[in-house]
């Protein structure tokens, strides 16, 4: 059992859904990352999704694009990222998922990269541009290194494909809420609710279903939870707060916001 799977089991026994909080490491700077992580953990986040920037993030909207650019301009490097992960691991046992793009892994070699990621403390991987057709070697390396492979599905993914992707997914399955890139959304679409219900029907019950892209308020969280998801992923909304808050107040602000979101995951 992986850390992520254990977490979902634990939450189930408490009648709670998972709050997965995303941040971009190195944004607004390297020192802030650890402080923000502490804020998220204090606020009750169940799983952390750590972004490592890629120069060409095609699945991301303006907020994460900007955070990626800032992080890269401040000198983000994968070796530094692993050091940050190790520091986080010393402080907390929370499951850690790395979100980045395929080329970052491919360049270092899937196996070599994953070995380092795992030993730094990463538990799972999300690559928005990794399709199952191209995933053979990626999956093999992940299995060898005991890393969860979290694939994304979309509201327009057909059922036979949904099943195939779910089969390759471990940890949880990531349903993209909208036709679009990451970013803060103002409304919840009916097609998303339908997609959640459909995925819960089609996919193996043991694989938790997470929803992300555009989730930002406690009301969103409540609506998605009552539609049947096992996890909500909040990303751009965190980065918005980070953008707009002075560094002295940031940790508290993040904690407060996370607490509010977490409250809505309790059924």
């Amino acid at each position: 059992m992986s850390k992520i799977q254990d977490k979902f089991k634990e939450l189930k026994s408490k009648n709670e859904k998972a709050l997965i909080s995303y941040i971009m490491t190195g944004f607004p700077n390297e020192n802030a990352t650890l402080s923000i992580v502490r804020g998220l953990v204090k606020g009750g986040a169940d799983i952390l999704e750590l972004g490592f920037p890629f120069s060409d993030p095609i699945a991301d909207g303006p907020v994460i694009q900007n955070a990626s650019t800032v992080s890269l301009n401040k000198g983000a490097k994968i070796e530094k990222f692993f050091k940050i992960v190790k520091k986080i691991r010393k402080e907390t046992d929370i499951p850690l998922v790395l979100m980045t793009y395929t080329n970052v892994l491919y360049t270092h070699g899937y196996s070599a990269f994953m070995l380092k990621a795992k030993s730094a403390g990463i538990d799972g991987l999300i690559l928005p541009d990794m399709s199952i057709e191209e995933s053979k070697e990626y999956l093999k390396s992940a299995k060898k290194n005991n890393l969860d492979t979290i694939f994304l599905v979309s509201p327009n993914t057909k059922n036979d494909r949904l099943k195939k992707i779910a089969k390759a997914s471990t940890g949880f399955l990531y349903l993209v809420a909208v036709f679009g890139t990451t970013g803060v959304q103002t409304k919840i679409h009916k097609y998303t609710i339908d997609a959640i219900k459909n995925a819960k029907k089609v996919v193996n019950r043991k694989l938790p279903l997470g929803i992300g892209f555009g989730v930002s308020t406690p009301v969103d969280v409540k609506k998605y939870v009552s539609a049947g998801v096992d996890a909500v992923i909040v990303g751009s909304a965190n980065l918005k707060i980070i953008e707009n808050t002075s560094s002295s107040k940031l940790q508290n602000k993040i904690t407060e916001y996370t607490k509010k979101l977490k409250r809505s995951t309790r059924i």
Partner: protein
Amino acid sequence: MKIGMPKDGRFGDFGGKYIPETLVPAIEELEENYQKIKSDKSFQNELDYYLKNYAGRPTPLYFAKNLTNFAGGAKIYLKREDLLHGGAHKINNTLGQALLAKKMKKKRIIAETGAGQHGVATAMACSCLGLPSEVYMGYKDTVRQQQNVFRMDLLGCKVYPVKSGSQTLKDAINEAIRDWITNVDTTYYLLGSAVGPHPYPVMVRDFQSIIGKEIKKQMKNVPDTVIACVGGGSNAIGTFYPMIDDGVEMIGVEAAGKGLKTGKHSATLNAGKKGVLHGMMTYLLQDNDGQIKETHSISAGLDYPGVGPEHAFLKDVGKVEYKSATDSEVIDAFLTLTRTEGIIPALESAHAISHAIKIAKTKPKSDSIVVTLSGRGDKDIDIVKQYLRKNVKNSR
């Protein structure tokens, strides 16, 4: 693997479909429809009609006598894609894809553009076929290719300057992909080179293969050597593919910018490393962490850190040689062709001309070299003017 016939969307290791899941149904729909029209006589007849009567095909194969004398050696022929409507080979592809989009009942066409030639060709094909078009263009490119921005405006095409990243072609592609993800149901993405996820590299190659097919017909046989410039690689693959098994020497020319050693270039096949970008595995200019590098070329159309996957494959199997030309060599070639033949080439095409001049003298007079002159240089005269002004000053 037979050359040119991808298996599971791959040319050897290269190509594939590294795409966000939301795009999968759109890519599948495209593949299915492309397969259908490939063997559909009425589609092909309609495309032939537009290529002939609207775009101006076939284009001449011109024996450049003065340039041949200047270079001193093998006979140099020019495949005059610069004479096509819009001024570049791009229209071969945009007419094909726009017709396909229409058959697919798509209501909205988006595209990216570097030099603006693909944007203009998209706007023209769409106007002609009654489709609305919107084009993403790097901000830096909108400044250096203003004339093409205005041409698109006049053609009723919306141009969005892209201010993210390096503000050139790669960022325009990023933004077009994001738009496509957001409007996947209604929108057709009309990609402008032999790049991107499968089936784009194959489809664009097939639409551009008219270049090589005509060359073969016009030469009555095959030439000894063919040369074409390589940005994403569409005019080059369109030139090479029809003679891939004919024993022709094939040379692609990349942009060496300020020199391969300076790091300020776009010579992906000469200096790149394997990686994944824009839905494909190919050679990329990238750093040790897999971050894509900023590129440089005097020609906006070659200013791209990736290259079509079929070229990556052809390089690895040794079927095609990939060389490069620097900005200053390109300016020399631009001026030479203009003065000897009265033909003003696009700076992109001047890369191929430069290499032809270089190697013609090493070959016997009985040899023939065909250079694909992918576009005309009207769009570039301000850049050339600035370059000459600056460099005349420097040399004083």
